[in-house]
């Protein structure tokens, strides 16, 4: 390597420049959201844009830097359903993450480690569901949900997303390479099949479970169309609904919009910062598999 020093320097500088430009592209909109949530709408669309929230743009006397947040939390009707809607989103997303992990690992294990007639057919049909555009099945799905009397309940928000084909696929692919010798050894020791699953297979899937759990948490946190139909009362609504509903009334209050967007992102940011290892999943999984 040493002999390339001269060349490496130039190329390295270029690499750094490239990476930093991309960083700016990625970070600026997020930073914008954060600073804009403290600003008056007047400042957000002022030309040229200044990044420091300033009082001189305030258009009314009783305005403070936190007015946007107060508006965001109060909502359109001053009923303060914001915390409840955040809680709903958390409940739904966490439940879906948990059920996805359990059901997908069960199914993935069954598909990867057992031979039975029709296994490929089962696998392919589950994979095919990945191709279904959600918009196509919204109405039949609504009818099913209604048939189970789950409209406007947590069940209705959770059950249709309990597991995803993609989750099954991930678990199966992961478990294909799980050494069968361990399983055989456990069988020889007289362990039941469920115990083998719980004691040996499941604990050994931790990295992929974490990645999958986070993925499904994120998808549900992001889900807008389905809750729009199913969560009808104010106390059942989720955060994306809150934002779109808020946007309808506060369309022109860009500051309040950014505040609500920022507040709604905080739980995801916390999760991301604390579990980034699993978010950045692939690599982490790879490392632990090697070990």
């Amino acid at each position: 390597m040493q002999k390339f020093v001269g060349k490496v320097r130039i190329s390295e500088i270029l690499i750094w420049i490239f990476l930093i430009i991309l960083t700016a592209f990625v970070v600026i909109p997020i930073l914008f959201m954060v600073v804009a949530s403290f600003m008056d709408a007047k400042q957000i669309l002022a030309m040229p844009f200044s990044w420091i929230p300033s009082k001189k743009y305030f258009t009314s006397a009783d305005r403070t830097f936190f007015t946007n947040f107060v508006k965001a939390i109060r909502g359109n009707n001053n009923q303060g359903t914001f915390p409840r809607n955040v809680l709903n989103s958390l409940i739904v997303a966490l439940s879906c993450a948990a059920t996805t992990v359990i059901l997908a690992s069960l199914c993935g294990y069954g598909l990867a480690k057992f031979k039975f007639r029709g296994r490929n057919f089962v696998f392919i049909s589950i994979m095919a569901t990945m191709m279904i555009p959600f918009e196509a099945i919204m109405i039949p799905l609504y009818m099913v949900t209604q048939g189970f009397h789950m409209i406007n309940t947590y069940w209705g928000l959770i059950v249709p997303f309990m597991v995803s084909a993609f989750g099954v696929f991930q678990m199966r692919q992961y478990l294909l390479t799980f050494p069968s010798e361990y399983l055989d050894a456990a069988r020889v020791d007289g362990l039941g099949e469920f115990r083998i699953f719980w004691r040996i297979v499941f604990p050994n899937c931790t990295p992929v479970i974490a990645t999958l759990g986070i993925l499904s948490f994120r998808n549900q946190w992001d889900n807008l169309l389905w809750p729009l139909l199913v969560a009808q009362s104010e106390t059942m609504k989720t955060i994306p609904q809150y934002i779109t509903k808020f946007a309808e009334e506060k369309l022109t209050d860009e500051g309040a919009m950014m505040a609500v967007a920022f507040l709604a992102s905080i739980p995801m940011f916390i999760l991301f910062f604390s579990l980034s290892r699993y978010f950045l999943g692939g690599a982490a999984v790879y490392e632990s598999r090697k070990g």
Partner: protein
Amino acid sequence: MALMLKSKDKTVSTKTKEKAVSNERIKPKRYSIERKEARWGFVFTIPCLVFFAIFAFYPIIYAFITSLTDRRAISRTWSFSGLENYIYIFTKDNGGFPLSNSIRATLVFTLGTFIPMIIISLIVAVFLMQLRKNRQRAFFQFVYYTPAVLSSVVAATIWMILFDPRGLVNQFSNFVLGTSGVDYNWLVNSTMLQISTMLVYFWKYIGYFVILFITGLAAIPPTIYEAATVDGASRWKSFWRITLPLLKPTTVMVSIMAMLQCLKTFSTQYMFHQGGAARRPIDVITMNIYFTGIRNGRLGRACAMSIVLFCIMLILSYLQLAFTRSAEEVEY
């Protein structure tokens, strides 16, 4: 997705999958166990099967049957109309928003998003692997991934403000191009509008794809590079001769997954349209299905479009399988 890719590489590098399969095949001693195995395999898969039967197979079959009817959302009765809906969507205008335009919009979006995305994320991944410290690499990975944790609603809201004629993007464009006060019509001009949706998508998912490629790169044994360095190959050469061919399976997988995701895109276009942007330039298939079925209540026709999209995606996935199979033949 990350994982799938990863196991795929695993499969490629060690052929474990092949081994696993053949191992199972050459186990004649297990006749008694086979039936038991079958039973347990069934037990483990049944909860998911029941789930998919109710929440995926039934709805899609229902959608298929509906696509053969003239059903409208609020009518109490409907009748079978055979392939009329399919003929209609391919020959008529669907009230000014024809399927042909939607297929165009979807393809433009898909190609315009996933090709730059694949190329740039590959370059970024290679660059990141060149960094001397792991911590630097981790930092950039972390930063690039951040937009992906924002919800699409939030992302669209931010970008709508950024794309305002008075917004930051326009100010920046003026700055870069040395103009002043020009409105680049980010949400207005139909080409710019399409570029805007691509930009948002690119912004949101670039980090995700970078990580997928890094995973792929990490799977290439360092010994290969060492050998190449000994042979005196330059970095540039070793990139073209070693890295790229070895990354082929990863690239194929990533690009096809990206393509499928792009084909299903909905929320950015929907939010932009709600915010005042024109529909035709960005009327992707999913959005057309949504407006035709959910908003205009033409269920039969919307279901026919869904089935068409379903088929397009199935064909592409078949291609994916075909591709990856040929990709698996790559040997280290």
